[in-house]
């Protein structure tokens, strides 16, 4: 495309885009900055932007007071465990639908998607009852299972769209050379599928990390992940802005960094392959 773009226009674009970008990012930036202030500076009028006495005190207070490590560990275990479990269950399903499609494949995929649309609140009490019955209430295991189930349709879909892009000819060539189903999966498919699987793991880890309906409703003190930890700051600790900010920063920073790596997969994963 030979379109001549004047430097002037490019400058205007740049200034405008940066201004909007910074405006959208500002709440996060402000939270991170506030986490390094003292409580008095955090509510100072006029607000202090950069020139305050930077301190790490809030971080140590939050960790001491609230057993942050346990919440963090719960988050890692629930998000990691549910994603890993989901991918293990989804790989064979997605593989068979991508490479041995039948007349019903499309219906099965759409039906799986429809389970994702089930409003959580509609099944809240049954799940609550089942959890009590099986002793899963406020347990990391119970939440891992539920979050695995709510993300399973997305995992199957993402893997399916990735697997479908693997050329079938290669599989046929392997089959002709006498490769068994097992070696076909192990030596031909797996290496080609690894990038797709990695992207799926990444996006679903993020989704599981941020899930805030079941994590709030099915946990109390023991199995709460970071979503519940932050919700407990609702009041009266919420009035301590610097500490709230430190807790928030610790809860979002790891996922923010992971998230930036998953931009592209986000579109594919959340539109079920409808926008690429």
């Amino acid at each position, binding site marked *: 495309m030979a379109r001549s773009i004047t430097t002037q226009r490019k400058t205007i674009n740049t200034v405008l885009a940066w201004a909007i970008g910074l405006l959208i990012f500002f709440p996060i930036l402000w939270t991170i900055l506030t986490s390094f202030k003292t409580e008095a500076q955090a509510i100072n009028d006029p607000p202090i932007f950069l020139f305050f006495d930077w301190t790490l005190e809030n971080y140590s207070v939050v960790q001491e007071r609230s057993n942050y490590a346990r919440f963090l560990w719960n988050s890692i275990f629930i998000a990691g465990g549910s994603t890993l479990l989901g991918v293990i269950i989804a790989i064979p399903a997605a593989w068979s639908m991508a490479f041995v499609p039948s007349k019903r494949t499309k219906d099965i995929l759409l039906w799986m998607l429809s389970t994702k649309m089930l409003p959580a609140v509609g*099944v809240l009490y049954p799940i609550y009852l089942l959890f009590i019955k099986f002793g899963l209430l406020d347990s990391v295991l119970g939440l891992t299972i539920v979050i695995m189930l709510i993300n399973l349709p997305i995992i199957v879909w993402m893997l399916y769209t990735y697997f479908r892009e693997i050329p079938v000819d290669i599989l046929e060539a392997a089959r002709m050379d006498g490769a068994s189903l097992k070696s076909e999966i192990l030596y031909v498919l797996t290496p080609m599928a690894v990038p797709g699987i990695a992207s799926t793991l990444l996006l679903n880890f993020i989704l599981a990390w941020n899930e*805030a309906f079941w994590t709030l409703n099915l946990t109390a003190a023991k199995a709460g992940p970071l979503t519940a930890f932050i919700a407990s700051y609702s009041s009266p600790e*919420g009035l301590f802005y610097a500490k709230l900010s430190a807790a928030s920063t610790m809860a979002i920073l790891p996922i923010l960094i992971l998230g930036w790596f998953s931009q592209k997969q986000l*579109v594919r994963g959340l539109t079920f392959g409808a926008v690429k």
Partner: protein
Amino acid sequence: MATQNSRSAARLMMAPAVILLLGWMLVPLTMTLWFSFRKYLPLRGGDQGWVGFDNYVRFVSSSSFWPSVQTTLIIVGGVLIITVVFGILLALLLDQPMWGQGVVRILVIAPFFVMPTVSALVWKNIFMDPVNGLFAHLWKFFGATPVEWLSQASVQSIIMIVSWQWLPFATLILLTAVQSLDGERLEASEMDGANPLQRFGYIVLPHLARAITIVVLIQTIFLLSIFAEIFVTTGGAFGTKTLSYLIFQRVLESQNIGLGSAGGIYAVILANIVAIFLMRIVGKNLDA
């Protein structure tokens, strides 16, 4: 051509995922359906038997039903309009040549990765607090009286918080669609004398139609069940009770399981109406 052997192997490989999802869908849904026909108050007498469609009638005739429907429509509609309109504008801007495009994209996308409880709490306290919030400082600086956002303008405040969270999603998907736009068609129309507004209306917008539809449908499904943003900020007070929050209160706060379950079935039906449209688009894409 797949052999009979690989067909049955395929079925076997699908089985775990299918069985799990089938169970996840059928078991709780059947229970909800069952409870919805019973008078069931766990803390006040337990299961008191079959009442037919009584709960369904009572749910819609309760005084909080229509306000909650209205609130749901305003919140979902408001967020959709804001995210789609600004999403299109932002996508078109980000598609333009500029310096530091990658960094701007990262800044714009960031809110999507912030967990809902964090964004709700940060907005509620650090920005919207009427005494110490940043907005209060700003208002006072201009000599205005600070607004008590979450009580005086509660629904608008929640729309703003949720829009902030979902704007990145809309922008990202619309940007992906904008990038697949045929540059030569635009150039040709430019040479034919079409002004920017005409080019937008006749070429860009029709090209984006499908992506916009998908954004609207997917967001609707998620927005119908927003929870943490309301739970943390107002707890359903000040007219921010959406339909799903009302059901949540009936079930867990007032422990009226029959009534809440009837509401749950309404919510399932509502979500399914939206879902049918989404599935049609996604399904068409599968055939291609």
